[in-house]
């Protein structure tokens, strides 16, 4: 029986030796613990173990060593973790992550092969692919190839889940407006319209693509008509469809159409594109007003006006229209042609001389 020299306790109730590995700081009898402050810091513990009686010393030392060993193991684990992280970062830097991601889309197997391999989890597969596609889409500008791959990914997603109407719609908008690929957009939307006849916004978007991007107003009007007949379609669609049929190529109808689409799209980039398109249509409307006034002038005077302001001073126009992009309208007094300084070529949809135009 030894004596704890630190506290002078001779009872050695056993608690001193049976301390659990985490409570080394409590090497004392519980009764004494309450009376004195006891050792608190590491150095105090070491000092205590030196002054302890020889019987207890080995136990305390073994406890101390086990602490040191645990600390070393913990350090080793964290060190290995840090090493793994840094190696991984190094590897990531070596292979350009972004490029790899987009190229992987091109390597996706076709939906019809992927679907059976997913053993009934194909809806989840479509979700995960959609998530991956969205991460790639975050880039501001993509190359033409990349848009083809994205179309492929959208095709796979919609084959896995043919009723994923949202993917068709967003994909259709993006392929037409970001990528300028109305052909890809249309084939995606056609597929969607075929499997989801109850979704009105798919034919609506098809109509938009035909009307504006491909300059086929008749086909555009036909799709808008189809969208209008779908249950749940907004009230303005039937009116728009009839007007499009009757006055295909009228800029006012086109502006209404654009406004309708603008309301349906919360995406800021898409809205910006639609606003630009609306301004282009406004130019077309202004040019038509100017052309009409010039024609009247030519009728009355058998000569073209010297400048556009002549039209106002001779009361053919109330005022000159403002060019929506901040430029101005240029007039050639010899030929009598008006053009916009910012958009010298006119919109295809309204040109009679182009194939498919109205």
């Amino acid at each position: 029986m030894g004596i704890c020299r630190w506290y002078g306790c001779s009872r050695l109730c056993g608690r001193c030796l049976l301390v659990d590995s985490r409570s080394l700081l409590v090497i004392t009898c519980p009764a004494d613990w309450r009376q004195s402050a006891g050792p608190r810091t590491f150095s105090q513990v070491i000092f205590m173990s030196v002054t302890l009686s020889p019987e207890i010393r080995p136990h305390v030392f073994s406890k101390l060593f086990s602490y040191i060993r645990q600390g070393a193991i913990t350090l080793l684990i964290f060190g290995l973790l840090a090493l793994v992280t840094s190696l991984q970062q190094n590897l990531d830097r070596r292979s350009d992550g972004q490029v790899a991601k987009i190229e992987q889309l091109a390597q996706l197997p076709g939906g019809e092969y992927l679907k059976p391999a997913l053993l009934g989890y194909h809806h989840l597969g479509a979700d995960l692919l959609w998530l991956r596609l969205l991460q790639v889409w975050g880039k501001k500008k993509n190359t033409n190839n990349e848009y083809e791959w994205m179309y492929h990914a959208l095709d796979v997603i919609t084959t896995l889940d043919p009723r994923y109407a949202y993917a068709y719609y967003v994909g259709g908008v993006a392929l037409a407006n970001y990528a300028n690929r109305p052909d890809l957009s249309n084939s995606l939307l056609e597929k969607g319209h075929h499997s989801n006849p109850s979704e009105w916004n798919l034919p609506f978007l098809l109509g938009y693509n035909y009307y504006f991007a491909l300059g086929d107003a008749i086909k555009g009007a036909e799709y808008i008509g189809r969208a209008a007949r779908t249950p749940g379609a907004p009230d303005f669609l039937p009116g728009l469809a009839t007007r499009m049929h009757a006055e295909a190529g009228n800029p006012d109808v086109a502006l209404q159409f654009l406004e309708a689409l603008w309301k349906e799209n919360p995406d800021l980039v898409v809205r910006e594109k639609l606003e630009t398109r609306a301004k282009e249509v406004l130019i077309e409307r202004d040019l038509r007003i100017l052309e009409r006034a010039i024609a009247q002038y030519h009728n009355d005077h058998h000569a073209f006006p010297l400048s556009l302001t002549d039209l106002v001073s001779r009361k053919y126009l109330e005022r000159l229209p403002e060019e929506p992009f901040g430029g101005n309208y240029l007039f050639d007094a010899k030929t009598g042609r008006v053009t916009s300084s910012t958009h010298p070529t006119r919109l295809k949809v309204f040109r009679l001389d182009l194939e498919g135009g109205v």
Partner: protein
Amino acid sequence: MKVLSIAVNTFRENLRDKLLYNLLIFALLMIGSSLILMRLTLGEFHRLILDIGLGSINFFGVLIAIFVGIGLVSKEIEKKTIYTIVSKPVARYQFLLGKYLGLSLTLLINTAIMAAGLLAVLSFQDVPIHAVLFKALGMIVLEFMVITAVALLFSTFSSATLSAILTLAIYVIGHLTKDLKAFGQKMEGVGRSVLEGMYYILPNLDRFNLKGNVTHQLDVPAGDLLMIAAYGMAYTAFLLTLASVIFQRRDFR
């Protein structure tokens, strides 16, 4: 009565299995993770929660069914505890049925816990819950019951590892039998009848998959549901009978 007491015992034994808890915790983590993934997606984030939730319930349930199911009989034989049961006045089919019911009960409770997790996430995100969700969950449980019966059948005549591989194979094939039929129809003569025969003998597990209906809120007519349920039950009965016949002839050494 004998069947019931074996079932209750099996259930208690299953509760002591650490594998069960690991898989359950993983499933709940997966369901919870949909809350994080949801922030990355665009548009219909509801469907992400539903797809991940139902997918995890299904996947982890199948894992439990297979990896607990294969041990039901083979473990008893390995530990020689089967002698104490077989020597009592208990028919072998009763023993099998008890084992099967015990694991089915475990799976039912497991599915209920995972479904509760999914429902909690759904209500936390204010996702409307439709009746078809519960129908799909019911069908998932039915799929577990068929797979458990498959695992039990294999474990009556082969080792645990081999049973696991065979059951996994049946699970994969069970989702591809539609193609088996399609291939068969393109063939002539013997090939055709062999493939068609396989199509009818193998379980068509795709029938129990209503996960897509939940995502798109497409209701399933009650008549169809009843037919699917009847198919599941009948197939399970077929497997269990087969297992009893094999187990009856089994010599424990």
